[in-house]
């Protein structure tokens, strides 16, 4: 049996799903929804590096997929479809956020592992029974998306830091910024030669002896900064 075959969607109920800019852009475009129709913002308790500001203070926020009460009264992801016999399925599966796509896998010392202590039944996930190459692709892509998002947020925060307190920005201002910048970024990756993109993905965050700023992923982030400036 495949791990998600009898899934009731506990992951869509018990977890809060953090969104990056690519997630917001994809869901907004594919589902024809405005970000404020599916996002909740949460004030960060600790700085994550991807928290956005709305003014010149140190307060940062993160984007979270919104929830609503399900038929049993429990909070659940807005996009969870409740089918018969308690079965749950994602209603935006092809456009689901990065965090959902990679769940419950993670890279540890370069190897794929399935997280312990998750809501899935014990033993549901086993590295021996999974397409690890596909999981690796998803994880590498996720690392890249979050890395790009950190750059997009940093540019926004630099603007927000110059905003007078009386002119505090709103979440909707931030969403508009995100949609605009990710539209610009969509051509950036498309125009990259496949082998260059693969080099960016494969060695994301690793310098491999290259001088600072010269690793493929760093050069890519420089292009990102230029595209969104």
């Amino acid at each position: 049996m495949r791990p998600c075959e009898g899934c009731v969607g506990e992951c869509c109920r018990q977890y809060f799903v953090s969104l990056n800019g690519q997630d917001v852009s994809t869901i907004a475009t594919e589902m024809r929804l405005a970000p404020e129709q599916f996002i909740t913002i949460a004030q960060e308790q600790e700085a994550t590096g991807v928290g956005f500001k709305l003014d010149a203070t140190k307060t940062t926020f993160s984007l979270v997929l919104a929830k609503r009460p399900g038929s049993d009264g429990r909070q659940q992801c807005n996009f969870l479809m409740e089918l018969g016999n308690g079965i749950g399925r994602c209603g935006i599966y092809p456009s689901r956020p990065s965090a959902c796509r990679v769940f419950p896998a993670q890279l540890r010392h370069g190897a794929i592992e399935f997280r312990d202590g998750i809501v899935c039944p014990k033993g549901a996930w086993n590295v021996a029974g999974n397409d690890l190459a596909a999981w690796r692709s998803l994880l590498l892509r996720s690392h890249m998306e979050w890395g790009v998002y950190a750059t997009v947020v940093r540019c926004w925060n630099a603007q927000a830091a110059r905003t007078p307190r009386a002119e505090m920005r709103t979440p909707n201002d931030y969403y508009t910024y995100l949609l605009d910048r990710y539209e610009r970024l969509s051509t950036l990756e498309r125009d990259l030669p496949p082998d260059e993109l693969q080099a960016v993905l494969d060695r994301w965050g690793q310098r491999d002896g290259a001088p600072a700023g010269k690793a493929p992923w760093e050069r890519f982030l420089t292009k990102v900064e230029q595209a969104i400036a």
Partner: protein
Amino acid sequence: MGTRDLDPMQTKEERWLACARKSCCRDTIVYPSGTDIYRISTTLLVPPWDFTVALPAPDTAEDGFALDRTNARYRAALAKSESTQACTFLIFALDDAARCGLGALRPGPCHSFPSYLDGGEVKLMQGVCSCRTWTVDDVDVDLERDLLLAQARERETYKGVIGSWNAFVARAGDEGPYEYSDYCRYLLDAYAQMANATV
């Protein structure tokens, strides 16, 4: 739609997607074809009886299946949510704007709605949508015709599967009556065999 238009709406697909009310998913009963049921079930890994229900059909219905040796016939319809009374696949944004959770997987009748063929001519049902009044100018007539003709072929195939099932039930003697899930298993098996035969 919320406060921001993402880009101009042009195609029927985009207009359908952006419709926030989705009255079609609330006010109509959707009868998927066997192809639809097989596609949704095998893609979502959900058995048909968890997203469809058997509704009584006229005993003369060509696409009506039997569950016993009487003349009673049924048709498989998409289930509706008890809490919203809307299609079980409908999802809702924070402002209750509705979207189809199946997207490209949705049944043929949902794809073509509100188009229909009248003597080979594509026409659009009137008064069925709360979001707009459809005219042929809103759709690509050639695409709609192709879609509707493909659905007609699927329905013929489905009738064949139902006919085989009904013949099986008629021969079954004391083994019946059957459950709706028995019919669904037969349907999945029949379509799996057809899929394997075409690989």
